[in-house]
């Protein structure tokens, strides 16, 4: 035991420069693979997952960069199921005039773009009106219902 302590003491001076092996800068808070998200509508599955303390994980971002921003569609793993969702608020630093939120908010949707819940409890960025309108494709995906259940825009 004593020998071990001695050896240890001999090693310590060699590793004197105190240096951490992990990064110390502020996180970027990007929405990417395995990011935990917050469901903000009143869909039963989303509510349950949030109450349980197991918020959904992002398992795919439907864009080319792999980093989700406002209006992007994501695939989430929620309560053992795969569901599609739309990002309606980001924690990441945003451009001027675009609101930045304290959490990454999503709304669960079906494949045709209509939301599962009937109400969104948090404010939505008003630029989403334009983004989602542009992304709606006739007879394929339609986000107008999602916009109509919003309570507040900032």
């Amino acid at each position, binding site marked *: 035991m004593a020998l071990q302590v001695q050896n240890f003491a001999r090693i310590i001076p060699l590793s004197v420069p105190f240096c951490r092996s992990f990064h110390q800068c502020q996180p970027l808070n990007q929405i990417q693979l395995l990011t935990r998200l917050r469901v*903000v509508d009143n869909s039963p599955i989303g509510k349950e997952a949030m109450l349980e303390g197991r918020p959904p994980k992002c398992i795919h971002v439907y864009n080319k960069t792999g980093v989700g921003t406002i209006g992007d569609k994501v695939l989430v793993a929620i309560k053992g199921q795969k569901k599609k969702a739309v990002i309606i608020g980001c924690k990441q630093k945003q451009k*001027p005039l675009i*609101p*930045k939120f*304290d959490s990454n908010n999503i709304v669960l949707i079906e494949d045709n773009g209509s939301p599962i819940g009937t109400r969104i409890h948090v404010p939505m960025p008003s630029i989403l009106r334009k983004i989602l309108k542009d992304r709606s494709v006739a007879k394929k995906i339609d986000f107008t219902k999602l916009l109509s259940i919003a*309570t507040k825009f*900032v």
Partner: protein
Amino acid sequence: MLRRVVLQTFRQGLAQSFFKRNAASLSESAVTQHPIETSEEASEKSGSKQKNGDESGNTVVVAPPEFRFMYPEFLPDPTMERRNKLKEKLERMDMLQRRSIIEIPEFYTGSIMAVTVADSNSPNKFARFVGICIQRGGSGLQAWFILRNVVDRQGVEILYEMYCPLIQKIEVLRLERRLDESLLYLRDALPEYSTFPFEMEAERRLNNSVVPINPIKVKLRPRPWLERWERQNLQGVEDLNLPQRYYDRAKEVAKPWEKYDLMLQYRKTIPAEEQEKIYAEVHSQLQQQDLKRKIKRRRGPSSEQ
């Protein structure tokens, strides 16, 4: 070449801003350096002396000293590589022109503000946001500030560029300052500290009264935080209730010598002489605009009667 310019400005700036003002003994040492200086510098020095003489004769306009706190965005970015005298001057002209169209009132971090923006997406074409100014920065036309509010229990922040043409109106609902320069810690504070109603009305304020400092101490949520607040020497935060080892580490990584580092201070700030020049250039127009607005406000209610 660049090095020479930097050296020159360094000598002038340091000698004029710090040494001359603070200590007589140091100014003596600056005097002893005079024989080493080049002829150019000497001529510039004499020029500055003439100006000083003008000031004593009250012929040169001098802006009030509080201008550097009221209008910090008129000062250029002190980074040497980004300095460009012409660009700065043009930007100042553009800023004054924009200010003649909309009123950009005096505000500080900690003031509660309302900003109305032209928004083509909303049905009434305008979007108004109320919040507390948590940070302010940038220089020239790129000056910006961040407003924060908690809406429906969701923290929202918006960054506004002060001279953005989309901005229709900037109101200051409550003009005050906080104990800290940057209030980013409100992101980790309890939500009631950054909740402000959208229907809030502007508080009346006496003309030319001192801007009050709000001595409120904010309570933070327990860790994890976005930043290590215990290392930042924050005044407006309640006791953080951390284990002793966090404070010990904060003491280890602290840099208490930086406040004595004259070179660092010089690189981070614009010399006082240059500031005076800039504000002397803009202050007459700023005051004229202010006066015009005051007259308009006085006439407004009388015309209604």
